[in-house]
């Protein structure tokens, strides 16, 4: 026997409630759909790069120099080397400035200046890379009337700088203050504490930031277009133009030759592996830090 109270709670949900539950479910579906739509291009792009790039990829491609226009075959060996030289060169200039800057930001010793510097780093990160290229051009190409690997590496270093500085700051901040306090209490001077205690502790994280910056620099095209400029030849000189994978990719892609298009996909595969591998390694190093 059901009494009035039981009957009351047995009534079906009011239309208002049904509508609210429907809206809630529709929202969940829409949000889930958004994620699928967002991830689909990732799958599509990686799939295309692998499926079109792999057939043209062989040892010859990775090691030889390009053939003259019209002839098929050849490779991007010079560009792979060029990218590595440019990216390492960029690191050589960005790390000595970026890591200490990051340490400065994390130390909070001059909070107002630190705030301004932090803002500068963040804004610098947002400067379009082509404008960075123009900056490097006016500084290192225009005066010498010469494209050069040095100018390209400099442009990349400007792009890498904010990443290195901010990652270093984040990681140094995470070093527990108890560690620094204990060292200072033992009478060690600040600089020794920094070099012997804090940096080693933060080391993996700083390395991760550097690797991430390396990957980012290796993938950049625009700033190299009028600094390193590209080249058909193998070059090790910092004062000469030099090839880079992204530049070769771009030039082959917009060319009218099918053979070069195929090589562009292969170059894309190499570049993607280089950049994504760097990303994964950096992420791994970040996660494996001791807290």
């Amino acid at each position, binding site marked *: 026997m059901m009494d009035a109270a039981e009957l009351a709670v047995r009534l079906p949900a009011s239309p208002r409630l049904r509508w*609210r*539950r429907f*809206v*809630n479910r529709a*929202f*969940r579906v829409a*949000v*889930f759909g958004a*994620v699928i*739509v*967002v*991830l689909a*291009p*990732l799958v*599509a792009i990686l799939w*295309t*790069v692998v499926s079109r790039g792999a057939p043209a990829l062989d040892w010859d491609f990775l090691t030889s120099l390009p053939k003259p226009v019209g002839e098929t075959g050849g490779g991007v060996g010079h560009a792979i080397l060029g990218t590595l030289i440019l990216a390492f060169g960029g690191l050589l200039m960005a790390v000595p*400035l970026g*890591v*200490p*800057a990051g*340490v400065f*930001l994390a130390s909070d010793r*001059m909070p107002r*200046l*630190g705030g301004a*510097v932090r803002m*500068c780093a*963040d*804004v*610098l990160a*947002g*400067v*379009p*890379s*082509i*404008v960075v290229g*123009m*900056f490097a051009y*006016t500084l290192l190409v225009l005066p010498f009337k010469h494209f050069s690997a040095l100018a390209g590496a400099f442009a990349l270093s*400007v792009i890498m700088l904010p990443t290195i500085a901010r990652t270093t700051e984040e990681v140094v901040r995470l070093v527990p203050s108890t560690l620094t306090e204990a060292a200072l209490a033992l009478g060690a*001077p600040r*600089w020794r504490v*920094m070099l012997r205690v804090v940096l080693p502790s933060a080391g993996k994280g700083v390395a991760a930031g550097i690797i991430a910056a390396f990957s*980012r620099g290796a*993938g*950049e*095209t*625009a700033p190299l*277009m*009028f600094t390193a400029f590209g080249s058909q030849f193998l070059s090790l000189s910092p004062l000469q133009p030099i090839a880079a994978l992204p530049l070769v*990719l*771009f030039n082959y*892609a*917009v060319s009218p030759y099918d053979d070069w298009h195929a090589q562009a996909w292969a170059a*894309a595969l190499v570049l*993607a592996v280089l*950049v*994504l591998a760097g990303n994964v390694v950096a*992420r791994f190093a970040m996660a494996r830090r001791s807290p």
Partner: protein
Amino acid sequence: MNARPSSSRIDTAFQASLVLAGLGVATVLAGVAWEVLSLSGEALSKGGIGFLTGTTWDPVAEEFGALPALYGTLVTSAVALLIAVPLGIGSAVFLSEMATSRVASVVGVLVDLLAAIPSVIYGLWGLFVLAPLLREHVQPAVQAAFGSLPIFAGPPLGVGYGTAGLLLAIMVIPVITSVSREVLRAVPDTQREAAHALGATPFEVIKGTVFPFARSGLVGAVVLGLGRALGETMAVTMVIGNRYDISASLFAPGYTLAAVIANEFAEAFSPRYLSALAGLAVVLLGTTLILNAGARLLVRRVKGAA
């Protein structure tokens, strides 16, 4: 007699070098702005406001008007945001409010991978996969349905404002998603609990408490995405169609500030030409700087208030 320098002097030198490094970063930023501005000086002072409003780009006759490039930049970015904002914020809601922490970290990594793909690879895919797809299937279908609208006029080429906007959207979504996700996570759980305890559905909790609380931070995320879209060069250059003109149709080819610079800088044959290109860079830099600085302030405000 102690011949070594005292520790405190090394200390001061050490601290000073840190401060110098910090100032170095600021100097680099100032340097970028300064150099680009001075390079553009000639074009801007000669052209004056006409530089911004002119529509011809004739290096031989030395007539430089930035308007079509500016128009292209704005249109492609607007299209990109229209697509990227709902998808990006929706994904952020998924990651922050709905997914379990394991799913969220996997999806988060995948979204970050999207951000790590170099722009030139996006351009390659856009040119050889997306553009043909649009040209052969999507654009004819859209024209069949809405062909009378001026926004969809013109022959289906596959490249143009719409394609560039679409490609930009894919590249901008990770920015919007990751910043929005941080902003949403900064909303205190006590707010959500209060809403749940009043009998709100999960959707109502998000709409009534989380979004209002995070609103300015979400706007900041969108503005950061806009900043990224404005400055994006390679992918856009490869699918914009490279036509220096203004058109109302999304299917028409056009040009953007960054694309013009990328395509022409290495070939610039006169100082005035170079200066004009630098002028485009100034317009680009100015807009991105203001947007970026403003956006970061907004994001910081939400994270500070939480």
